[in-house]
């Protein structure tokens, strides 16, 4: 399918929902994508089945602080150097690119990169939502290498890593990002199209587009429960944000808590890092990562990110099923609450069939 302006709107909404409160706000990224569309270059989204199984795809995206992304937008030409570095090292002829992360900015940036590289986007990603670290990509969770990988920018700065385990690569990349001005373009080891079912979350961009299209119906008079059902999830609670507490961390990402006084009188508490990770209703854990937790502005339905949530907002807390990939035996631990220091077993929402 060929991406048009209407799809960009849906994509912006859908990737924001799948961001689970993180992944960066998608509206600016959507503008960058519209600018790319305006140049007239076609951007297409292909199903993995439409591509020959022997072909390769390269996961691309950006890594770093999304807050800096707002200050320094891509100027064009960011992905060519990292892409070239990977091809140079692996000697494959790619059939297209896939997203490293569907949630948030990366779900959109993959199309910007595809436009720059002149390749189609294959509908798959490595996280199925937003997650903060590169060692939390599906490939890494399965124990497969993520290197060679490259980060770089339009001015020619380039870092290529190879032969490194994911956790070490995460540490090196995290440490190097400040030298790239906060964020960098990212490309990594090409994956065989035939392996996408096993190694990635296929169809996640399509899910983002569908979620976005359904979410467009949200307005002031919408019934949250009906909206949640249409999105394939459920409402955890609706009410006013009573308190937002942020704890600065000396290592890793800062933690925080959002406490919502539900209209029914109960209290809903969300624990967050870069994403909303755990929900407790009246002290009882009711939802957790790898499922997706969203806070939406009650009136507009616009997702409220962990960075921008503040006391006094009238919100609806939404629980969407996470990618089934993360519930496979042996990989859940990589994204379960304990991976974020929350000492509790993950809680799964039985995925309701999305409404047609």
């Amino acid at each position, binding site marked *: 399918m060929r991406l048009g302006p209407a799809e960009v709107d849906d994509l912006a909404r859908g990737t924001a929902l799948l961001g689970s409160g993180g992944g960066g706000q998608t509206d600016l990224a959507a503008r960058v994508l519209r600018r790319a569309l305006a140049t007239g270059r076609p951007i297409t989204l292909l199903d993995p089945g439409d591509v020959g199984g022997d072909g390769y795809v390269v996961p691309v995206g950006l890594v770093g602080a999304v807050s800096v992304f707002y200050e320094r937008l891509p100027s064009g030409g960011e992905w060519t150097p990292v892409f070239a570095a990977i091809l140079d090292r692996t000697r494959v002829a790619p059939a297209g690119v896939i997203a490293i992360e569907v949630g948030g900015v990366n779900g959109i940036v993959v199309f910007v990169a595809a436009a720059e590289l002149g390749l189609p986007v294959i509908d798959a990603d490595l996280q199925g939502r937003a997650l903060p670290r590169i060692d939390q990509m599906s490939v890494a969770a399965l124990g497969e290498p993520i290197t060679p990988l490259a980060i770089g920018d339009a001015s020619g700065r380039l870092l290529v890593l190879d032969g490194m385990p994911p956790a070490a690569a995460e540490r090196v990349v995290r440490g190097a990002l400040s030298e790239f001005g906060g964020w960098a373009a990212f490309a990594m080891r090409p994956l065989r199209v035939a392996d996408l079912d096993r190694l990635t979350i296929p169809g996640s961009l399509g899910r983002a587009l569908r979620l976005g299209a359904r979410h467009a119906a949200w307005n002031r008079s919408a019934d949250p429960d009906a909206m949640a059902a249409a999105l394939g999830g459920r409402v955890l609670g609706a009410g006013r944000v*009573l*308190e937002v*507490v942020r*704890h600065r961390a000396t290592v890793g990402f800062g933690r925080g*808590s959002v*406490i919502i*006084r539900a209209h029914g*009188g*109960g*209290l809903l*508490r969300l*624990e967050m890092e870069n994403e909303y990770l*755990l929900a*407790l209703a*009246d*002290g*009882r*854990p009711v939802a957790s990562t790898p499922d997706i937790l969203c806070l939406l502005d009650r009136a507009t339905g616009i997702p409220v990110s962990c960075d921008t949530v503040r006391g006094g907002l009238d919100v609806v807390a939404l629980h969407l099923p996470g990618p089934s990939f993360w519930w496979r035996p042996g990989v859940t631990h990589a994204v379960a609450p304990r991976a974020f220091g*929350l*000492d*509790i077993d993950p809680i799964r929402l039985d995925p309701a069939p999305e409404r047609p």
Partner: protein
Amino acid sequence: MSAERAPTLRQILGYPPLAETVSLTGDEGLDRPVTGIVLVDAAGAGPVRPGTIALCPAVPAGYLSSWRLDATVRRLRDQEAAAFAVPSPAPGEETMLDGSRRLARHLGLPVLAVGHDPLRWAGDAAAFLYAPAVAAAELLHRAHRSLTGAPLGPEEVARTLSRTLERPVAVFGPDGAPITEGFGPPPGFDPYRPVTQTLTEHGGTTVVVPVPAATGWGVDAWIAASLGPVPESWARAVADVLRAGTLALQRWQATRRVVLERDARLRASLFGDLLEGRLDPGHPARRDASEIGWRLDGWHVAFHIAALGEVDLLRHTDAVAAALAAERVDATVVERGDGWSGWTTTRSEPGQDAGRDLIAALRKVRRRLASRFDCAIGVGRAHRDAPGLTRSLAEAWDASRIARGRPQTGRLVHIDRLGLAQLLTAWASSETFAPAAARLLEPLRSQPGDLVATLAAYLDAGCSAADAAAVLGVHRNTVAARLRRVEELLTVDLNNPDDRLALHLACRVTADRSAAT
């Protein structure tokens, strides 16, 4: 003890050894009964029986503001715990989030901060919950130890008990008036019921126990402890502790009485010397007098406070001295017969103002003592030095006799205001003499001839029959004949001065009476 109602959380927080405890979630939910205490970990895991306080003795850093506290509160609520107890956060450390407090209130599970030694808290709370009798015995033991040293006065007994109970303790007088600092009797306290009274108002309990009088009936004082919210068993334990205090007070009173009696004997013997005018300069007893603080030089005004009815004087000597001191009467006081004699001494002769002031002060003293006993007060005139004091004391004694029969003067009589004749008449017309006078002259009334008037005129005329005849307008011989009949009828001898005095007074009183009617 098994039938005892379980104490409430509020009462546990009111138990002095647990006083550091504060509720982090406000005042709600504190009135539920508590049946036990159990230790849990920070996740609240493990079985918790309904009604128990779950105490987590150590929590990780940041726990109070974390979601785990919320989850634990929820789990404990689902197990019907009475409360969740955690160590108090250090100053500056993170405490509960507003949202968590709200959650705990919403779920109805109070969160208690129990200070910085949670295991000790647990021990104290467990002793209080499971073995209140042991905790009470321990308290009684401590009270006993602190009360059985040197004899302690009311102030010291109150202070000692207050330290033991860690609650305010006060001593009240027999009528319930506070005699130590602290607090007054609670509403509903009845000073005429000499039994232990446990009074609860606004959830706060006050226990008041009587100090039985040495005479075996009545109450000398009360000891009260203001406890705040406490369970019944604790109020009973406190009553036992206060009773230990009553023993200490009785001991102190007995000791004091021995001292007073010894003093009283010395004073009585010196007083005897004084009344008989033996305390001249140079007399050996004079040295004893100055040693016990008697001032014999200068101008003295004596007074006598006569107690009416059966009164144990020594029991009240302190109260009399206190009442005088309260009215700023700087006097030496001695027990004497039916009451207390005292005198004030000045360097120069006191003026009229000083006399008036003393009388006004003594009137107030009498009112102050009214709750203990009724009394009559006589005041003598100002006289100089030891012989003068003897005289003033005698006058005060006489005046107090008169004051007894004269409620119309407020049972307070000052010799100065009387004049000797008035004094005599006043005495003669007293309740005891007037009927006797009437009876004495009764035989004359039924006889012909105005024998009473004749006798009165004769005596008024200085025993001159001629002058009396002139006053009465009869013949001199008639007067003489009537007087002979009087002597026969009354079997008196008009040549005897004693008989004459009695008859003269009787005539005057009956004349006054018939004039009044």
